[in-house]
């Protein structure tokens, strides 16, 4: 039976979309600081948001490898679009998909698959990030449900979201076992959102604080069985890290491609600067680290697809690919010389956006601690 290879086909298809629709307007979108709603809807129309979910439940029937391929390509075009799309596919909708009621599925999950509703994931607090045990947002049980009080910060999509998946403590005495996820629609009384943060990179991704003040929700809005919030989060942590690695690969590719192009055109002392060995060394390092990042990342995604535990592999991929992307973006600005300092050129955007990758899915300081422990230290 002759059939196409879905990975090649979907990569080529996304690459064409990025080349035709995203890259030509990426600089202008970034400069405007406005959320690219039109592009976001187009990505939704292509069925991207359902890539991780089965077809018979409103998804597109793909897997983690395809999810990462798509977002690597999107990140090559515009990191803020890729980041929001990645959130839509994974953290924003995963718990709703697995643990939501039929009504939530129809009214929120399916519209989110089309890009008609925007989800977000509220985990970080002013005093709690990687340290989940420090989460203080409280969901207190009442006779007819829960009352949520607390504050979340660095909420991607916070200002534009239609619904939130919120990590809350239900019993502080139980520490990590007291953490649970809750579904909170935006219009629920007591939900308030701050002004969007001014950020260094991914400037069109809206991030904010979200405050919950006496927010009443029914029992069925708890997503998952009580006490399993952390284990449910751990079940997608490898995927979050592999996805972040894929975003990094996209940014690395963009940095390298633009640097190569510039090095071929820019003349110094009578010849293109790409003819000088110090420039060649920078490109050689980017190219080598790109290949290494690809191998680490797509090994992890294949393990996820095979349902093989791979938190170590995904963590290493995220750590390595992101560091490589940050380095490549930095080197690209140096290859551009003073033009790398100009807002007119793309490399300054890559440099700023690369910093976004350092924090999502765990800071590298925490990741390195984990990796050292897994190495036997």
């Amino acid at each position: 039976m002759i059939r196409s290879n879905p990975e090649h086909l979907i990569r080529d298809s996304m690459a064409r979309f990025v080349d035709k629709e995203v890259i030509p307007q990426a600089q202008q979108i970034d400069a405007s600081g406005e959320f690219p709603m039109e592009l976001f809807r187009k990505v939704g129309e292509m069925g991207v948001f359902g890539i991780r979910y089965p077809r018979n439940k409103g998804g597109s029937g793909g897997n983690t490898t395809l999810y990462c391929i798509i977002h690597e390509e999107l990140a090559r075009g515009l990191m803020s679009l890729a980041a929001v799309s990645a959130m839509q596919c994974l953290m924003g909708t995963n718990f709703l998909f697995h643990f939501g009621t039929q009504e939530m599925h129809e009214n929120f999950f399916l519209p989110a698959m089309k890009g008609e509703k925007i989800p977000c994931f509220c985990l970080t607090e002013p005093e709690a990030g990687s340290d989940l045990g420090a989460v203080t947002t409280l969901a207190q049980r009442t006779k007819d449900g829960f009352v949520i009080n607390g504050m979340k910060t660095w909420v991607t999509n916070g200002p534009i979201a239609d619904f939130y998946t919120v990590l809350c403590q239900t019993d502080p005495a139980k520490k990590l076992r007291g953490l649970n996820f809750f579904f909170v629609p935006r219009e629920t009384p007591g939900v308030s959102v701050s002004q969007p943060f001014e950020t260094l990179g991914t400037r069109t991704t809206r991030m904010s604080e979200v405050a919950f003040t006496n927010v009443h929700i029914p029992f069925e809005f708890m997503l998952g069985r009580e006490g399993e919030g952390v284990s449910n989060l751990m079940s997608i942590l490898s995927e979050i890290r592999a996805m972040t690695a894929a975003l990094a690969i996209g940014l690395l590719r963009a940095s390298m491609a633009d640097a190569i192009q510039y090095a071929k055109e820019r003349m110094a002392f009578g010849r293109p600067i790409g003819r000088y060995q110090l420039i060649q060394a920078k490109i050689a390092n980017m190219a080598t680290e790109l290949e290494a990042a690809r191998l680490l990342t797509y090994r992890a995604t294949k393990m996820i697809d095979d349902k093989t535990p791979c938190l170590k592999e995904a963590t290493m991929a995220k750590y390595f690919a992101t560091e490589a992307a940050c380095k490549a973006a930095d080197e690209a600005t140096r290859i551009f010389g003073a033009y790398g300092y100009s807002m007119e050129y793309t490399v300054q955007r890559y440099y700023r956006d690369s910093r976004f990758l350092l924090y999502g899915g765990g800071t590298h300081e925490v990741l390195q601690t984990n990796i050292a422990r897994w190495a036997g230290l």
Partner: protein
Amino acid sequence: MDSIVLIKQVPDTTEVQLDPKTGNLIREGLKSIINPDDAHALEAALTLKDRFGGKVTALSMGPMQAIDVITEALGMGADAGVLLTDRAFAGADTWATSFTLARAIQQVGSWDLVFCGRQAIDGDTAQIGPQVADWLGIPQAAYVFAIESVNPKHITVKRRLEDGYERLQCRLPALITVIGEMNTPRFPRVDRLLAGCREKAPIRVFNAADIGVKTREVGLEGSLTHVIKTFAPKFKREGKILEGGKESVVRELIQRLKASEGATACRAFASACEL
């Protein structure tokens, strides 16, 4: 309104490079795509389907890897695909290709319209569509950039001419060749692409026997023309400053243009100057 769309897999480049020794296309590093005009033809068929319903079948002739353009067509919204692949089809000129495509179209079932791109970027002949219409014995409209109306019996289109356009009404079934200004092809949906990669995907694969043709009628053997040599023309700019009086310089310029191996227009210009 059921349609068949002929699509070709071509290298993704408008700057074809040939190996100077063999004359063959250098394919290394080149991706393959649906021929751009064919993507517009597919979009035209899908737009009609969106408005009036019906079924769209994408049909391609090529090596086995041409399955990718069929799958991409399914991703864009085609309902079914047919791949014509057989070693016997190799080396076909437009005569043999159009004959093979026409025979395959007759196998596909009922249809009202056949859509084709104006021409392929790797061959640039613009002959396949009109020839297929001839083999099928149906009316054709080439260089179409707008469909004005369709009813069960007729289609009215606008076709581009050098100095304007022509409105044309054809009875159905008919064949339309489409130019790029007609529409913007949609991007494939990932769920449809994935469905198109599955074993159960509605793709049929036909060989010569399946469409009832003899090997001597198709491919190189069935071709009326044979390519003897392929080469890249050499373009070399040579500057030459003519010196002397105005009249002698102009005369020499005209003589040089007449003797040149360059474009016909140059020689015609030189002859006109002499008159």
